[in-house]
C-alpha cells in the first residue's frame, strides 16, 4: 500500500524522461527540424530588421516629395535619383568620396606596417599589448574623441603649441595655404578632418589586415626566399597578394564608415556638406525622406563598384 504512490510517482518521472528523450532523439535524427528551430529566430531578426528595413529604405527612395506642401506621397518617381546628379548634390557626393578614398589609402599605409610588425615580429606579450593598444581607442565614445580632436587641432591646442615650440609654425601655415587641403586653422581645414577620420577608423583597417597576415604560413615566405626571391620580391609576389583580401576587408570598413559619417564633418573642417550631413538634414529639418533615402543608396552603390573593381584586380583570388 505504501509503495503504490511512490511507484506511480516514479512512473511519472519515467514518462517525462521518456518524452524528453524522444524529443532529443527525434531532433538528433531529423537534422533539418533541429536546424530550423535553431535558425528561425535569428533569421527572422536578420531578415526583418536588417534586410526588411533596407528594402523599405530603397522603396522609399522612389517616393515623391512635394517641396511645395513639404509632404511625401507614395507615387513612384526617379526624380530623387536624378537630383543626385545636380551640381550641388554631385558636389557633396564627390567631396565625401574623395575624403573616403584618401582616408582609406592613409589607413592602409599606416595600418599595414603596424599589423605586419604585430604578427611577424612581436613576441606573444607584445602582440597582446598591440592588440589592446589598437582596440583601446574603440572602447571610448566616438563623440568624445571627435570633440577631443577639435581641442587638439585648435589654435590653442597641443599641435599648434608643439609646432610653435619647434619653430615649425611657418611650415604648418605654408601647408594650410595649399588649396583643397588647407584652411584658416587646422581645425577648419580638410587636412584636420582627414587626420581625425584616419585616426578614428584606423583600428578597423589594422584588425582585418592582422587577421589576414596571421593566416599566411611562414613557410610560404621561406619557400619564396629559398627559390631565390629577395625580400621585396617575396613581399610583392607572395605576402601582399595573400594579405590583399584583408586589406580590402579593412578598406570596406574605412571607406563605408567615412561615406556615412556626419559628425566629424560637422565638428572639424571647412563648411560644405557630406553625404551623412545631407541625409541628416533631409530627413530631419526638411522632411524630404525620399531624397535622404536616395542619398543613403549612394554609399552602397559606391561600395558595390569598389568591390567589383577589387575583384577584377584579383583581390579575392587567394581566398
Amino acid at each position, binding site marked *: 500500500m505504501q509503495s503504490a504512490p511512490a511507484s506511480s510517482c516514479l512512473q511519472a518521472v519515467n514518462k517525462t524522461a521518456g518524452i524528453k528523450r524522444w524529443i532529443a532523439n527525434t531532433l538528433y535524427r531529423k537534422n533539418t527540424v533541429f536546424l530550423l528551430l535553431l535558425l528561425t529566430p535569428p533569421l527572422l531578426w536578420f531578415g526583418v530588421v536588417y534586410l526588411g528595413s533596407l528594402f523599405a529604405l530603397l522603396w522609399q527612395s522612389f517616393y515623391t516629395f512635394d517641396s511645395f506642401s513639404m509632404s511625401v506621397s507614395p507615387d513612384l518617381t526617379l526624380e530623387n535619383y536624378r537630383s543626385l546628379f545636380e551640381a550641388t548634390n554631385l558636389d557633396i557626393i564627390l567631396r565625401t568620396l574623395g575624403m573616403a578614398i584618401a582616408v582609406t589609402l592613409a589607413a592602409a599605409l599606416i595600418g599595414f606596417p603596424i599589423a605586419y610588425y604585430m604578427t611577424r615580429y612581436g613576441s606573444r606579450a607584445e602582440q597582446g599589448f598591440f592588440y589592446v593598444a589598437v582596440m583601446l581607442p574603440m572602447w571610448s565614445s566616438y563623440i568624445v574623441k571627435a570633440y577631443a580632436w577639435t581641442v587638439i587641432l585648435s589654435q590653442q591646442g597641443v599641435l599648434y603649441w608643439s609646432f610653435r615650440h619647434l619653430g615649425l609654425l611657418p611650415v604648418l601655415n605654408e601647408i594650410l595655404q595649399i588649396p583643397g587641403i588647407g584652411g584658416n586653422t587646422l581645425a577648419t581645414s580638410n587636412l584636420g578632418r582627414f587626420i581625425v577620420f584616419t585616426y578614428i577608423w584606423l583600428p578597423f583597417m589594422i584588425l582585418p589586415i592582422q587577421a589576414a597576415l596571421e593566416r599566411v*604560413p611562414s*613557410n*610560404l615566405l*621561406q*619557400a*619564396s*626566399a*629559398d*627559390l*631565390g*626571391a*629577395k625580400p621585396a*620580391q617575396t613581399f610583392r*609576389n*607572395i605576402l601582399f*597578394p*595573400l594579405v590583399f583580401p584583408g586589406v580590402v576587408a579593412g578598406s570596406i570598413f574605412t571607406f563605408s564608415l567615412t561615406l556615412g559619417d556626419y559628425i566629424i564633418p560637422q565638428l572639424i573642417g571647412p563648411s560644405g556638406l557630406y553625404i551623412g550631413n545631407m541625409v541628416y538634414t533631409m530627413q530631419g529639418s526638411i522632411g524630404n525622406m525620399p531624397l535622404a533615402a536616395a542619398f543613403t543608396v549612394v554609399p552602397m552603390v559606391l561600395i558595390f563598384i569598389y568591390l567589383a573593381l577589387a575583384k577584377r584586380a584579383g583581390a579575392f*583570388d*587567394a581566398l
Partner: protein
Amino acid sequence: MAIAVEFSAVSRHYGAGIETVRALDDVSIAVEEGEFFSMLGPSGSGKTTCLRLIAGFDQPSSGNIRIFGKEAAGAPPYEREVNTVFQDYALFPHMNVLDNVAYGLMVKGIAQSECHKRAEQALELVALADYGKRKPGELSGGQRQRVALARALVNQPRVLLLDEPLGALDLKLREQMQMELKTLHQKLGITFIYVTHDQGEALSMSDRVAVFNRGRIEQIDPPRKLYTQPRTGFVADFVGTANVVSGDLAQQISGSRQPFSIRPEHIVIESDASPNHTVKVAGRVVDIQYHGATSKIEVDIGKHTLAMVVSNTEHAEAQLPEISQSITLCWPQSRMVMLETSSDGSR
C-alpha cells in the same frame, strides 16, 4: 669527389643560461657531391635544424657551414645554391601549378616564355605535364608533393634539401615516391640531403645516413653498415629493432659488462639452432604477436626481455612456442655487436 656541404663544429643554441636548448651541438658532417645523404632521428633530435641551417632559414650559434667550399653562415636563403622541398610542400595557394614551378626562374628575371618552357619541362620530369593550369588546392597530396619537387628542381640546384617530404602521404604512395625519388637522384646526379624520422625510408634510399640524437650525431655510415654495426645502443634501437643487453646479464652472456646488441631476426629457438649458434640463453615466453609474414616472440630472460622474429613458414608455425613456455634462445657469436655508450650517456 668534392664536398657539397660541410659542417665543422656547428652548434645552434636557443635561449641562454640554464635554459639553453641545444638544438644542435658541435656537429661536423661532410656531404659529398652527388650523394644521397639522409639525416635520421626522432623529432627534436636536430635533423631539421641542420637542414634549416643549410637552407639559410636559421643561422648557427657557432661553427662553420660551407656549401661547395663557400662560407654560408650569414648568407640569406636567396643567395644559396640550394633548394628545399618542404614538409607540407609550401606551394603558393594563389598561383597555378605552372606559376608555382616557374617562380624561382621568374624572380631571377628570366623572360616569362622561357620560365614557362622550363617549368613545363620540370613538370614533365615529375609526370604532371597537363596540370600546369590547376591551383595547388585542386591537387592530391601526392601531386602536390611532385609539384614541390618540380618547383625546387627547375632552378637546377646543386643541392636539393628534402624535409620529410613523404611524411603526409599514405603508405603505398610513400613507397612509390621513394622509388621515384631514388630514380630521380640517379638521373640528375645532384646531391640530395634528406631529412626523415622513418628508418626504413633512410635505409632504402640513402648512400649514407647520419643518425641524430639530442642535437648530436651518433653515427654516419652507409645503411648496411649502420644496421649491421650500430655503434651505440641508440642507433641499434632506432635503426630497425634491436635487443640491447647491458650490465650483469651482458657479463653472463658475453663475459663483458659492455652492452651489446642482437637483432631479433638473428635469434632462433634451440630446436632450429645450427652449430654456429654458440650463444645460448634460457627464458620464458611472455608474448607472441602475429604480424602477417612474421611473428614476434618476446622472451623474459630475467631483468631483460628479448624479442625474436620468426618467418611464418609452415615449419616455423608448427613449432611456435606457447605463452609461458620455457625455451632456450640461441644466436651466433658473430651477430652480437658490442656497443659504445651513447654520446649523451643515456645508455
